[in-house]
């Protein structure tokens, strides 16, 4: 089993100055063969866009008979490790990502960290997704071979093919095998069953990124708090992507971040829907797009919709009690409004 090294490696400045590159072991035919012979195990951190595309990525590798390890659910330890590894101004989800990535280093030969710049014609993702593989490499001192980082920077099929080639090539598979595996994985991913909702006393829309809401440590807590009072929740993920983007184009055409466009579309939609009693904007401290989007949504959508809303900002110091108090107060407000 090949194991990744923690960043204790001492770099040799002379060597770097000589060839202008970070030190990497020389690539010889022998090395390549050895690497092929070693068992490959791909690690995927369960954070950021894993919450959106995790199943697709996992199936892509398992279809190619490559063992995959997914880091476990977020714990306090993961958060603490991530906080100490990350640069202090990084957003909370990025800190979690680094914590998850570190937990995989000991048991995996490769890390899968895709660079997702854009995959929709009209929208971009935020800068941190475009730089994610570099962040991971710079934080842990990994070389290029240890991080599988396909570039996804376009919406055309050719770009997708290039990404498949990078990912399949990194684990020693051909482009053809990779494309077939991707196709099958995509089909399974598209047939995800929609989340089932039980009977509820009311419905609240949580507007937040999927990597915040689906993380049991962050948004999971809010969902559980509301569920304990018998309140059902809907999230932007429950709304069809196309419908959400169409809504955004109509009501907020200036938005160019893809994830924010999804949230804006969902906010407009849920603000209109009669069965949604209130809206909660959930964001993380340090999120660049949210810092302006929340203001925009508040002024353009929420203030005029006549429904109670709450803006919650989470950070690594957030206490459970603080969130609970605010969410409970918010629900009391919703109930009082409904009684009137």
């Amino acid at each position, binding site marked *: 089993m090949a194991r990744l090294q923690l960043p204790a490696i001492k*770099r040799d*400045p002379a060597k*770097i*100055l000589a060839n*202008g*590159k*970070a030190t990497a072991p020389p690539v010889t035919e022998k090395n390549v063969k050895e690497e092929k012979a070693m068992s490959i195990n791909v690690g995927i951190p369960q954070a950021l866009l894993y919450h959106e595309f995790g199943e697709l990525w996992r199936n892509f590798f398992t279809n190619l008979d490559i063992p995959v390890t997914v880091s476990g659910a977020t714990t306090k330890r993961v958060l603490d490790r991530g906080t100490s590894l990350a*640069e202090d*101004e*990084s957003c909370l989800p990025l800190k979690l990502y680094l914590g998850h990535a570190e937990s995989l280093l000991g048991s995996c030969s490769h890390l899968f960290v895709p*660079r997702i*710049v854009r995959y929709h014609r009209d929208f*971009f*993702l*935020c*800068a*941190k997704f*475009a*730089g994610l*593989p*570099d*962040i991971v490499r*710079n*934080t842990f*001192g990994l070389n*290029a071979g240890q991080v599988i980082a396909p*570039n996804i*920077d376009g919406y055309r099929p050719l770009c997708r093919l290039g990404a498949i080639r990078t990912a399949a090539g990194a684990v020693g598979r051909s482009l053809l095998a990779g494309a077939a595996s991707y196709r099958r994985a995509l089909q399974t991913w598209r047939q995800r069953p929609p989340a089932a909702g039980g009977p509820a006393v009311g419905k609240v829309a949580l507007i937040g990124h999927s990597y915040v809401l689906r993380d049991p440590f962050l948004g999971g807590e809010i969902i559980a708090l509301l569920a304990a009072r018998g309140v059902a929740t809907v999230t932007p993920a429950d709304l069809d992507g196309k419908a959400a983007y169409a809504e955004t184009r109509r009501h907020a055409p*200036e*938005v*160019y*971040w893809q994830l924010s466009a999804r949230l804006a579309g969902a906010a407009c939609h849920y603000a209109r829907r009669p069965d949604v009693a209130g809206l909660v904007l959930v964001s993380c*401290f*340090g*999120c*660049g*797009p*949210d*810092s*302006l*989007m*929340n*203001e*925009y949504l508040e*002024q*353009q959508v929420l203030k005029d919709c006549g429904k109670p809303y709450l803006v919650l*900002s989470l950070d690594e110091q957030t206490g459970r009690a603080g969130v609970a108090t605010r969410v409970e107060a918010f629900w009391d407000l919703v109930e009082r409004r409904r009684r009137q």
Partner: protein
Amino acid sequence: MRVTYAHMGYMNAPVRHMLESLAVEVVATPPVSERTMELGTRYSPEGACLPYKISTGTLLEGLDSGADTVVTMCGAGKCRFGFYGTVQKIVLARGRKIAFHTLDTERLLTDLYRFLRQAAPAAGRLAVAKHIALVIKKLRALDALNDAKNFYAPRAANPQRVIDTCDYGAGEIAGSDDFAEVNSCRELVTETMRSYCRAGAHPPPKVALVGEFYLLLEPYANRWIENALVRQGVEVKRFVHTGGWAYAKTLLQFFGFFDEEREYLAQARPYLNHHVGGEGLKSVGTALWSARHGYDGIIHIFPFGCMPEVVARYALKNVAADYGLPLLTLSIDEHASEVGLATRLEAFVDCIKRKNQGSRL
């Protein structure tokens, strides 16, 4: 039409002169100050970055002095800059009736031309084109003066004299109406600055200044960091220029001669391998270039929470460690104080000077 626009370093004076020459009424706003910052902070979302807050502040000052037309810039990309105008419009238009013009940096030349034609209907096409060319010429001359100041001041017996000469020359160039006059003025002032240099002195330590665009260009935001460094006898090289940027974004880009992205990508490898929006790639690329070209230290300056620069920070940490260079990271927000910054700069300069002495022994 009474126009106001956001300040950015020495861009203000030439742009104002251009508008006034075309008979557009400009509302004069004071340079960025503590009041601007307070005003901007009060009317901005808490988590917005510093350039957003300062530009909101200057625009509000302009509107309070009677402006009715706001000109802002925006650029699509991964960074927040592209979304400034949309959110600012909500705050600025509250309780007022204003016209809002947004110039897209991706097509700056055509947007600027169209705006000027609309704002100055009496001026001919040729006059508008001439004034755009003149303002770019002036801004590039100001870039050259600033670079010359950063080179000669640390070599002079009295750096303050060089700084004063540069400021005086900048004022002369901003008010000039003639291409040849801009050239001769630039040459004269540069020559004067050079005459203050001591002959045969040790070459001063060199520091590369990298980071976010606005923070590098607006001296109030970075608390006159360049002047503070040259006064302590350190040569400063700043890699972002107002005029160079305007030139690249208007003329070069318009005629398709320019691909900044490819150039900096080649420089930044292997620490950063993709464009991350804003100045992220450029910060890493130029820092790496300086590390390979004998610079003694790197100063990275950006607004608190800046998305591209946070990505760049991960890379810069390793660049500094691999090349054994001192790195000072300055993350600036509205609470930054001049004294706190000065202390850190002095400590950094001491560190560089001591390191150089150690290597000379």
